């Protein structure tokens, strides 16, 4: 049953050190505001799960909060590498992190299986691929009908799923629209969830088959206008592509990264997100 909470309270009551946390959003609707609140609260020893780790995991990893990362593509989309993740993997700075690496197909299937209450996902995948040899969580099953050997991966069942959505109604029903990614699956697969939204409305005005999370599937809802920045929220504001490009320079240097995080995350508050999307608004 969804509770409406301040972001600070949602994070402190729902995410604990040592939890496995899926922050999802496939390019669209990435929950940056929650990640920054996790950093402010210094919640550590996290197992973070995310198909496309992106800037938020560069930041969480760079701040030393991550013990393990389950992922399928650790890049800055359209820009290049994630320099803080690289530094952790290549040089153990600021700490070493454990990697569990999959393909996109496997991660998507594993979330789907988690949402479906199954212990595993079955797919035709990893054929001839090297990840099979380095990830013991890639196994296989044999189809009892065709004899075909298919790949199997364990379902993802995070302690917490964190997503940013467009809006919620006053009961706590949540609407996601546009590139919906794996967010519905992540929330349904997780034990608990935090959903930040652009706004609360009287009526979702959703299409009959829209991607809606009923209020009783969500743990906490927090209004954070601009909470996906520099990602975007369809119909609200566009992707801040320059921010992604510029991040490459911030993340390239340990000192610059640390001072940037100090100024823009640790010493900042949740309200800054609404300012960050000024000038990026799109017409609804």
């Amino acid at each position, binding site marked *: 049953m969804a509770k409406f909470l301040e972001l600070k309270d949602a994070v402190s009551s729902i995410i604990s050190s040592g939890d496995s946390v899926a922050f999802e959003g496939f390019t669209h609707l990435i929950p940056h505001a929650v990640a920054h609140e996790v950093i402010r609260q210094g919640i550590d020893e996290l197992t973070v799960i995310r198909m496309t780790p992106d800037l938020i995991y560069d930041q969480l990893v760079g701040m030393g909060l991550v013990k393990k990362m389950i*992922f399928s593509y650790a890049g800055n989309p*359209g820009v290049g590498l994630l320099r803080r993740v690289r530094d952790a993997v290549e040089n153990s700075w600021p700490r070493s992190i454990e990697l569990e690496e999959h393909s996109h197909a496997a991660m998507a299937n594993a979330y789907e299986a988690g949402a479906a209450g199954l212990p595993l996902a079955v797919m035709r995948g990893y054929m001839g691929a*090297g990840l099979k040899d380095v990830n013991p969580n890639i196994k296989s099953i044999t189809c009892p009908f065709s004899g075909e050997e298919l790949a199997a991966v364990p379902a993802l069942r995070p302690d917490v799923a964190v997503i940013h959505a467009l809006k919620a109604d006053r009961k706590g029903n949540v609407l996601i629209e*546009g*590139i919906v990614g794996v967010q519905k699956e992540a929330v349904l697969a997780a034990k608990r969830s935090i959903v930040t939204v652009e706004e609360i409305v009287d009526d979702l005005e959703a299409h009959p088959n829209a991607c809606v999370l009923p209020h009783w599937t969500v743990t906490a809802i927090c209004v954070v206008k601009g909470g996906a920045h520099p990602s*975007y929220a369809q119909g609200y504001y566009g992707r801040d*592509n320059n921010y*992604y490009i510029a991040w490459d320079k911030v993340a390239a240097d340990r000192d610059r990264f640390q001072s940037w995080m100090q100024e823009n995350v640790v010493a900042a508050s949740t309200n800054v997100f609404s300012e*960050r999307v000024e*000038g990026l608004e799109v017409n609804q």
Partner: protein
Amino acid sequence: MSTLDFTPDEMMTIAASRALGNDDVCFVGIGAPSAACNVARLTHAPDITLIYESGTIGTAPEALPLSIGDGELCDTALTTVSVPEMFRYWLQGGRISIGFLGAAQLDRFANINTTVIGDYDAPKTRLPGGGGAPEIASSSQEVYITMKQSKRGFVDKIDFFTSFGHGEGGDHRQRIGIKTKGPTLLITDLAIWKPDPETKELTVVSLHPGVTKDDIQATVGWTVKFADKLEETPAPTADELKVLRDLKERTRIAHEGRKVERKGEVA
């Protein structure tokens, strides 16, 4: 650009675009593949279906997206599905005619590495990883690869098998149970390559205008095979160049975004 009125990069993109047809359903990677697919759509293949792994089906962006999931892709798509559905129904379902991949490292049998340089557990360079590529390589009916040639990229032995091309060549794909054709075309900044029908070794079949065999060998880490009848890639037409350059200009303007400085600005 001296005598020629186009860059090798433009030649690569345009040559790749020519390989695509109206009936193709392309799974589009970001970067060079995205440019090539959209040039095809804006020139000879207006009805081509472009699919990005973020879930957008039949998309027709005005400008090239920076990421695989820019809003523009959804705004112009026929429909947008969830990512699990994209990988289950559309890719694994065998509905993709052409999977378009790039690579950090490529070997002579079109196996691809985008995972690590060096040892997986103690890498010299940790690359982004495979993303959709392992299954794009096995589930698409055919795979086209596009990348710039360099000794660093065209290597004798890749450090990690991110996605399987033709393995050790010959019928290696079939032997491990893969039913699709795999890489059938490689388009670089210098040439067009195709796998030998028997050995599956990548073979240069067409040199781009002004490129020599020596230019090719100088950028490749193995002894290159050339087709007996080596062709010359037709230079970009004025129309092709205009479409590509207009697209890039629209992209530059679109990505410029907002100019105001604000709190939390990274630049």
